[in-house]
């Protein structure tokens, strides 16, 4: 797969504040890359640099092999940028809004009308074509933003929190729309705070904190990396401390902790079979009433990898 987005030691400073520090990122064609990080981590700055709106202080960012800054003009027709706000023009209706941006991409004549109609159909906004833009609901506006970036059929979509502040229905509709775009072969870079949805939508993610990329790779890998070893929660009917002491002697166990009547057992790396736990406890006369493996998802991985430091 060809690399569509690549950053090398990308750094951005605002005065003394370091927004990005030596960010190295690679996104391949057709990938849906989820950009995760706390507020102020540098996600928007990265997206703005890739959208040619900001110049890096140093380092390099490339989109489709064009260098941001030197070849920005070549990059712009290839990208579609959705910021974390809706840029509304007053007194424009939906169709005019799309035609306005189509004209900005030099799409004119009958071709423009056809494309606008197609995009309205794709985003299910056809019935709103005559509606005033500033009167649309937040969900509709967000969908219109996506429609806006599709009029020129870009290869890369840069979406900065497209599902922020949306209600559950609008969020699900947005997710389905993005899945459809992914199926169409678009490369998507999306930043969001709604991690379960990113896990569902993206095949690769990057975790950024304080301008530094902590992790970048497939979703499954990050979960595996974050999880370390298998963790099992065990409940016994009596004397959890004694049961914990018993389990700690097992060579497969890394650590054991008893808390609030439950025992948290961490197995050594590489060991995932925990069937010995109930066998050992029952054999020692303990009655087991709970046995559950801790599920490690993107949310947990994020919490484990980041420190919650906000700039």
């Amino acid at each position: 797969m060809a690399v569509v987005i690549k950053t090398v030691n990308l750094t951005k400073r605002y005065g003394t504040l370091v927004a990005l520090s030596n960010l190295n990122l690679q996104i391949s064609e057709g990938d849906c890359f989820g950009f995760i990080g706390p507020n102020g981590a540098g996600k928007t700055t990265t997206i703005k640099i890739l959208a040619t709106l900001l110049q890096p202080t140093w380092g390099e960012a490339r989109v489709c092999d064009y260098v941001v800054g030197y070849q920005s003009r070549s990059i712009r027709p290839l990208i579609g940028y959705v910021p974390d706000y809706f840029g509304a023009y007053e007194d424009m209706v939906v169709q005019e809004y799309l035609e306005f941006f189509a004209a900005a991409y030099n799409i004119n004549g009958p071709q423009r009308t056809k494309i606008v109609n197609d995009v309205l159909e794709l985003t299910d906004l056809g019935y709103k074509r005559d509606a005033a833009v500033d009167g649309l609901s937040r969900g509709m506006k967000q969908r219109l933003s996506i429609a806006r970036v599709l009029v020129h059929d870009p290869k890369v979509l840069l979406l900065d929190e497209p599902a922020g502040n949306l209600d559950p229905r609008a969020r699900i509709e947005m997710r389905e729309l993005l899945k459809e775009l992914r199926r169409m072969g678009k490369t998507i870079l999306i930043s969001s705070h709604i991690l379960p949805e990113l896990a569902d939508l993206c095949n690769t993610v990057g975790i950024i904190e304080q301008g530094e990329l902590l992790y970048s790779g497939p979703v499954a890998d990050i979960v595996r990396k974050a999880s370390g070893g298998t963790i099992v929660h065990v409940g016994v009917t009596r004397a959890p401390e004694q049961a914990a002491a018993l389990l700690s002697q097992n060579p497969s166990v890394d650590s054991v902790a008893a808390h609030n009547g439950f025992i948290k057992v961490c197995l050594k790396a590489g060991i995932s079979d925990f069937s010995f736990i109930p066998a050992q406890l029952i054999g020692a006369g303990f009655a087991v009433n709970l046995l559950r493996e801790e599920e490690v998802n993107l949310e947990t991985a994020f919490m484990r990898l980041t420190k919650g430091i906000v700039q």
Partner: protein
Amino acid sequence: MLGIADYFWRLLPGNPILLRVVQTAGKKRRDAIIRCGYLGLLVVMVTWILSTSGTSYGSSDLAALTKDSALIFQYMSYLQLALVALLSPVFTAGAITQERDSQTYDILLATPLTNGQIVLGSLLSRVFFVVALLVSGIPIFSITQIFGGVAIKSIFYSFLIAASTALVTGAMAMAMAIATLKVGTRRTIFSFYLFIVIYLVGFYLLDSVDFMHLHYVDAAGNPHTTQTSWLTGLHPFLALRVIFNDANYLPPNLADLPGRWQSWPYSWYWTSPATFYFSFMLIASVALVLPSILLLRRMAQSTSGFKNWVLQKIHIGGGATRKPRSVWYNPIAWREARTKASAGRASFLRYGFILLGLSGSILLLTMHATEGSPHQFISSGYDATRNMLFIDGDTRQDLAVSPYVQVKIGDRDGTTDDLNGRYEVKDFTLGPGNSISQINLRDFPRRLDSEQTRTWLLGVTILEFSVILLIITNAAASTVTREKEDGTLDLLLSTPITSRYYIWGKLRGLVSFVLPLLAVPVVSCFLFIAHDLLRWLAEGDSRFQWIVFPEALLMMPSMLIIVCAFAAILGMQMSLRCRTTVRAVMSSVGIIVGACALLGWCGNGILNSRSAIPELSVGAAVFSPFTMLTLLIDPYDFGGRAYDPLIPDADPEGARVTALVMCIVVLCVYALLVWSMYKSMVKNFDMTIRKQSR
């Protein structure tokens, strides 16, 4: 009792909104700079007057010192009022909506603060700054007391007029903000400002019109016209002029007024306009504030504004859906020219401007084209067989005509045959046998004679062009900053639109936006040219003079368009450089007003200069659009020596040709200026935007 005292304490002295502003006001750097600037201006003015009045400076002539003191007071009062009138709209316009913009309005409404506390707190906290400014000037005003010549009462009145002006401006902004929740936002401060300026300038000009003054006949039967007008008590500058005891602007004595105007409140209004002004403005402020207090929360709860309701009723704006319009190839130009113009408020203002402007011109033309009704006139009323002349008018009478009657028509001598014509009777003398021995006639007057028509048309045209210039400057100055503020600029910059394309689109769109407005003065002049042409063809009068020179049809549109383009590019330049819309608007309007005033002043000075060659001065005057308009419409009054019929070597035709040729040169100069500013903007666009995004 304690509860009532507590209520009033919380309403004003203990009002938390007022306290917040008062406590922080002295610490703001901006406020300190404005205050220092204001006091500095007053000091400079006093120093300037003292140093230029050679008769009294260092002299012991007390009478001259007193005179200078009065002059200082007069100038300072005007300056103080002008600054208050200019600053008040800026400070008071955002009274409520600034709270709304910063999303603290709903929080404020959800507190136990009463409507009265919120309204009065917001209003007085805004007016506070202006009042503090006035108070800070008292020590400088007290200089006038050293020399004498100024009554303390006059100083007191001067301050009251300024303070009441600030108060009524604030109350007006407050009432409009609560009714529409619009005034005070970035986009509407300018409209409010424009309204205040039009009110002040418009009423000041109307004051010079004859029908605004009271005409009456005294006991001895002599006709009189008052120096003050119906507008004096409603206009701060006119009211202020009264307190200076200007010999040309004195209010009438009560005893001189006709009986019907001697009753209260007319007697108060006519004899003491200054006290009427500040009392009336105080009452008006209360009248504006009371509904605001009563309706504050109710208006905040309403879901549809009165303005939207009106706009929907007249089918402009306010609707949720409509048929899409076709977008131009250059979407930026389309956006500036079409969507702004069709927005409800803009449509209303545009159509209002066009309708008002054209109606005014048609009214002027009608008044100029139709005959007036003189007090006495003749119209085929001479019976030669009986030697009797019927004089029509206010007093209809049949009078005998002496066989040796002397007939004069204007400056020329007439015959008895002329008595069968249609003329106004200026006066006549009765000789022996009560027959007319001498009669002075003149052409039947028009309701608006040529001179008056020119003056009015010029005034209206200049006013219209000034408003257009302010509109385009405001639109241009807010065009980039507004996009920076609402984030739409980022969307555009991530598209392949280049800076050249973007700036050219804006410029083209802005000029297209004002083209229908520019058509108003041009069409007005065209109407007069067409009328004059038809009259000339019909009458073939050798004494015929154009109201507007026909070359205006070529010179006016081109000159007005290029000056608008200049204003647009200048406004865009400021819009690009400034971070906020308000700053961009204020600085570009300031530059344009300053440049136009300077060019107009220079143009007028050159035209009336005795040393300059008349044709050359005409050529130089064309550089200012305003002096160019005077040369095209009213050159006999304002065109200087080149058009003066009393100067033997004056050559009006040559001056017209010079003006036309120079107009082409000036157009090229303006075009070059616009082009170079455009190129510089294109060159620096990316750099400036990048700097600001840091």
